[in-house]
């Protein structure tokens, strides 16, 4: 009886083909360049994120000042203050 795996050794013995060396070097270089580009991007993204939060805080603060001034003027006109 022939086992199911009878031809497995022949499959494993198939010769290894090698990819083109010059192209492989180009691919590695491209991948390295992309990895290198991504690293500063991480720092840039953190800075952008911090700037966005800071901007939101400043806008929020200005709005608060404006509305407190409006309320202050309204109360003064009514003679409450």
């Amino acid at each position, binding site marked *: *009886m*022939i*086992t*199911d*795996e*009878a*031809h*497995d*050794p*022949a*499959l*494993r*013995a*198939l*010769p*290894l*083909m*090698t*990819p*083109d060396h010059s*192209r*492989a070097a180009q*691919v*590695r270089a*491209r*991948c*390295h360049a*992309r*990895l*290198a580009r*991504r*690293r500063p991007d*991480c720092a840039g993204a953190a800075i952008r994120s911090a700037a966005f939060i800071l901007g939101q805080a400043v806008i929020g603060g200005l709005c608060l000042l404006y509305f407190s001034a409006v309320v202050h003027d309204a109360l003064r006109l009514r003679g409450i203050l």
Partner: protein
Amino acid sequence: MTGMDRESELALVARLREGDATAFDEVYACFNTRLFNFLARLSRRRQVAEDLLEETWLRLVARASRLQPDTRLGPWLFTVARNLHASYRRSRLLEDSHAADLIGLWPSGSPQPTPFEATAAGETGRRVEAALGALPVAYREALLLVVVEGLRPAEAAGVCGITPEAMRQRLSRARALLSRTLDENSVPGLAALKEVTT
């Protein structure tokens, strides 16, 4: 992952997530030839295999920071390569009946064996390669992943997006079909191998 224990693999994944180029080189050295052979035998075209191989590595770099910490690199890479090939086939409506194209895939010469060994091995290998190439892609990828690349059937099932039970059935059918194809072509070296296993 061949030649690397799980802890080393996890450490490598962690370094990849941080964008470490040397970690990328280690993964590349470990898998480049394996992925190329997988893609070459799946597509049966060297140029296509080269293109899909490049795209596989670019995908790894693009997604490195989003890899899960417990990613198994072998199955991950073979999944990407397999899916890229599936997309390529869909886009090109590739005909699946050109076993003769295989000849162009073979290395031009191997330095070690004697001329006789090279001729015998070359002839047997060509017949096995042709029989493998004549299988439907689903069977071919199952044999390549489990028998040639040494993935566990459950891992290969994950790569192909099927259940482990379906993969076991697919493997069994693929082996049976390969046997039948080789019997029809009567490979002398394999006839001797079969006598041993009888």
